[in-house]
């Protein structure tokens, strides 16, 4: 039996190494994705484009504007004569936020003890709008504090309790987005390679008819499946290693946790995702079909996997769906081990679930794969 598998493996590796396009995919996809995606996937809200309508032109209004632009979050895009003009900039996407300072802002503030400011935010991108509004609020509050100090002589101030907030950002003190994205993208990569290549390979044998020849030989079901799984399992690990190397060389990411544990988890995860590829292949007759089906599910897996948006923020029903998604565990564990140095105790439930996926997907695929029809 070992002999049969050995012959199958030999054949498989020869075919893989002879096919230059597969080798290219194995090498190029990780490099392109790891270089491009982290550069692009930066959600930090900065560079908010600001249009100012200053109807006051006073010392205070100027002070406020310079305080806002000095904050680093806002980029002064235009001074507009009217709100309507500024609105035109919002419509053409040249600016994201309008600050309108009313006439007699300074005078009213001193005379009435109170004055309003008008802010309009383009909220099509809700998150950006929300944070932009919050930033502006904070700046205005600080500005408010400054002028109060200026206007009121010290003895007149009632002593006021002030809470000072200090904050610390653990694991990533410089708030580097690459640190966050790269491990997630690595998980995505292993998923793509494992799921797609495995499904396509088996369906290719169906399409060109060689699988018939295999089916009349005494090769057992599990021989054939092992003969397919093992090469792609190894390829998955190689791709993962290339990815780890790139993330070290380019982004300087060294896993905080145990590398052995990381590989252990990836090894089990690959079994699950290869099982998925296998399952897809049992449903398809042509490579094009396999590609489409794999694409359909991988797309959902990735979107629901927490790579770009947090699973915690999803509504309950979506969280349940995300829980049925093996990719979400992989992404989570990658980030935990690489960035936080989480230990075995922290990931053991993830591991158990992935083992469950591996068993279920592979058994289903094996049951579904028939040598006889």
């Amino acid at each position, binding site marked *: 039996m070992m002999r049969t598998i050995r012959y*199958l493996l*030999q*054949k498989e590796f*020869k075919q893989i190494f002879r096919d230059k396009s597969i080798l290219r995919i194995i090498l190029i996809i990780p490099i392109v994705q790891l270089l491009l995606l982290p550069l692009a996937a930066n959600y930090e809200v900065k560079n908010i484009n600001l249009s100012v309508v200053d109807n006051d032109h006073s010392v205070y209004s100027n002070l406020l504007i310079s305080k806002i632009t000095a904050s680093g979050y806002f980029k002064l895009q235009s001074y507009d004569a009217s709100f309507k003009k500024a609105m035109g900039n919002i419509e053409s996407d040249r600016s994201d936020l309008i600050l309108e300072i009313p006439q007699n802002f300074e005078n009213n503030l001193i005379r009435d003890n109170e004055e309003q400011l008008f802010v309009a935010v383009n909220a099509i991108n809700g998150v950006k709008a929300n944070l932009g509004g919050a930033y502006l609020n904070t700046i205005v509050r600080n500005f408010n504090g400054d002028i109060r100090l200026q206007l009121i002589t010290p003895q007149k101030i009632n002593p006021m309790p002030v809470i000072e907030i200090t904050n610390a950002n653990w694991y990533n003190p410089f708030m580097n987005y690459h640190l966050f994205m790269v491990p997630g993208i690595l998980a995505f990569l292993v998923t793509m390679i494992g799921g797609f290549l495995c499904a396509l390979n088996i369906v290719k044998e169906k399409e060109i008819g*060689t699988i*018939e020849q295999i089916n009349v030989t*005494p090769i057992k079901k599990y021989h054939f499946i092992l003969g397919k799984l093992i090469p792609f399992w190894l390829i998955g690990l190689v791709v993962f290693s290339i990815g780890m190397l790139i993330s070290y060389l380019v982004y300087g990411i060294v896993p905080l946790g145990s590398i052995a544990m990381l590989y252990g988890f990836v090894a089990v995860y690959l079994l699950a995702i290869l099982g998925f590829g296998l399952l897809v292949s049992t449903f398809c007759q042509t490579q094009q079909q396999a590609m489409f089906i794999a694409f359909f599910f991988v797309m959902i897996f990735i979107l629901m996997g927490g790579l770009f948006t947090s699973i915690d923020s999803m509504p309950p029903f979506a969280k349940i769906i995300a829980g049925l998604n093996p990719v979400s565990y992989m992404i989570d564990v990658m980030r935990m081990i690489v960035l936080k140095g989480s230990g075995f105790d922290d990931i053991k439930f993830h591991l158990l679930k992935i083992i469950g996926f591996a068993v279920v997907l592979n058994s289903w695929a094996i049951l579904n794969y028939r040598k006889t029809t």
Partner: protein
Amino acid sequence: MPDIVIHTNKLTKRFGNFIAADEITFEVEKGEIFGFLGANGAGKTTAMRMLCGLSAPSSGEATVAGFDVYKQTEQIKMNIGYMSQKFSLYEDLTVLENIYFFGGIYGLNKKDLKSKSEVLLNQLGMHHEAKKLVKTLPLGWKQKLAFSVAILHQPKIVFLDEPTGGVDPVTRRQFWDLIYEAAESGITIFVTTHYMDEAEYCNRISIMVDGKIKALDTPANLKKKYGATNMDEVFFELARGAKRAE
């Protein structure tokens, strides 16, 4: 009493309401070249797939090399070779790699593989091509190679499903030389074809029409029975009433 290597009794395959093979009954003796004829869609391939253990019968019984097609498909597979109408070697492996692969999965050891592949390459005159990728070979060579690989492990029976489609008459003749050689060495040949000249090369032939076996005898007897001068006329006579010609 001659050795019977294939035996079927009312073997039937249904796909829903469609009866692809309808109560087929026949026997094939050891060392025979048995031709399995029929128009496209007559049920030849279905019947053959059942005998190879690729497809489970709906009813009826059959044994191949003494093994039951329902329960002992794995034992059957140890004892047969198969060559399908779709080309069945790996195009992206070399000639030698294909030989080693298929020999290997039938359990031949290193020494046997070496000597057998040597013999095989000699026989086909393909020594220079041993390290070439199969996809670079002409179709006729591929077919001869596929046949030789299918009998590499000396099966009791080899099933050939339209093995010579798309090649010229000379190459076909060479292919049949290989078949005769194999038959002489005791391998039973079960071959489907729709070339009527090839039918003449067989020891016995059966003709299938609409899933049923309409005739089964030697080519000479069939011609006599239907008063025909060649197999074409016999076939035409029988197939005329077919309902599910394509």
